[in-house]
Each structure stands twice: as structure tokens, then as C-alpha cells.
């Protein structure tokens, strides 16, 4: 697995809980106030370019700033990777390194 600090989405109630916008993950730690969580994600769900970005931008705590903002191009690569692997449509998941 890869540990990634991601943005939390949702939060309006039981059917729209605070969560990470990924098909498969396990939450390690979260901070709803700043809407971030460390999650473990299966290697096969993380494209090599996204994994390289995470390695190059370490975030030791939930509050520490992300050294560089997550590029829109990489977000699109991740979205398309998940769409192919799960075959459930292009716009299903839109995870963001935060």
C-alpha cells in the first residue's frame, strides 16, 4: 500500500459522510477541521506519476503544508487510472493529494 494525505469530501450527513474520494482505502488519521486524512491506498490504484509526486512531497503531519500543490494534470491521470481499473465511468472518483 501507499500512504497518501488526501482531501476529505462530503460531510453533510450519514449518506454523504466525510470521506476520501477513492474506491478503496483505509483511513489512518484524519482531521475534519482542515479536511485532510492520511489513508492507505493499494499500490495498483496509484499511478506511478502520482506515487512519485507523493514521494517528492512529504507531509509528516496532517497540518504540515504540502510542499507543492497537486497538479491538475496528475489529478486527471489518477482519475483516468481509476476509471480504467474499476471500469465504472470516468467521473466516478476524483481524489486529491492535499
Amino acid at each position, binding site marked *: 500500500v501507499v500512504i497518501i494525505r488526501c482531501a476529505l469530501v462530503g460531510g453533510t450527513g450519514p449518506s454523504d*459522510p*466525510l470521506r*476520501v474520494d477513492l474506491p*478503496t482505502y*483505509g*483511513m489512518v488519521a484524519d482531521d475534519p477541521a482542515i479536511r485532510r486524512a492520511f489513508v492507505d491506498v493499494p499500490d495498483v490504484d496509484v499511478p506511478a506519476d502520482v506515487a512519485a509526486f507523493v514521494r517528492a512531497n512529504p507531509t509528516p503531519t496532517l497540518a504540515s503544508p504540502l510542499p507543492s500543490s497537486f497538479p491538475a494534470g496528475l489529478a486527471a491521470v489518477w482519475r483516468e487510472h481509476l476509471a480504467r481499473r474499476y*471500469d*465504472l465511468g470516468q467521473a466516478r472518483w476524483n481524489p486529491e493529494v492535499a
Partner: protein
Amino acid sequence: MRVSSLGVARPVYYDRSPATKSQLYSATLAPHADTQRWSYTVPAGYKAYVETAYTLALQQTAPTVAAGGYSGVFTNTDDASASIVSYAYLVSATANTQVAMGVSGVALLNPGNIIFGQSSDGSTGGTRYIVISAKYSTFQA
């Protein structure tokens, strides 16, 4: 010359590229809004059989105002509706009270179906120890 039968049976599900997987979330938490703690989505070409699930909500320290909260495992099925696999709901003003639920052999999931763990605690003050887990096997559809 080798002759094989056209009627050879397909291997049983647990012999079709099987893999066992599990999810476990356990933590002591202050009151919190509905939060998804883990999720597993069945990839294309696979199915999953959920073998066990367990949820626990334990009031570790007493709240100043008690309110409801839960530890739950749920699934989203082909029709996109959610159903409960395991659910422990607790309202308690007393430390060391708990609700737990364990189930087995509970669900067969198709590609795109989701199983996820979720919790909340609407109390004011106090802490809860929660456990949300599931074990499942995946295999070729």
C-alpha cells in the same frame, strides 16, 4: 491424441484467482460527524464474498451530554442502494458501556459494489473506542 471434454466444469469461486483481504479500523475518538473509515470497491472482472464483519462502539469516558452514534459496515449494491452488514448503535452517559455486533457469511458483491465502514458520535464530550472491520475474499467473476 489428447481428448478433453467440452463439459469440464468451471472451477469453484475460491479457485478462481482468489485473494483474501481485510479492513480494520480501531481508534479512540472524540465526538465526530459521520465519517467513512475505509472502503473497498470490487474491481472490474472480480467479485467478492464478505465472510465476516464486526463492529464495536464502547463509551470509554462519559460524555457531558449523551447522544447517539454508531460503528457500522455497509454495502452499496447494483441498484446503488445501501444496506447494513453490521451496526453497533450506542447512546450512553456511562463509561464502559458498549454495543458490539459480529456477523458471518453476509454478502456477495459484484463488480462495482462497495463495502465500507463508517462511524459517528453525536455526544458532547467524552470519548469512544470504536472498531469497524470486515474480512472478504475476492475472485474472478
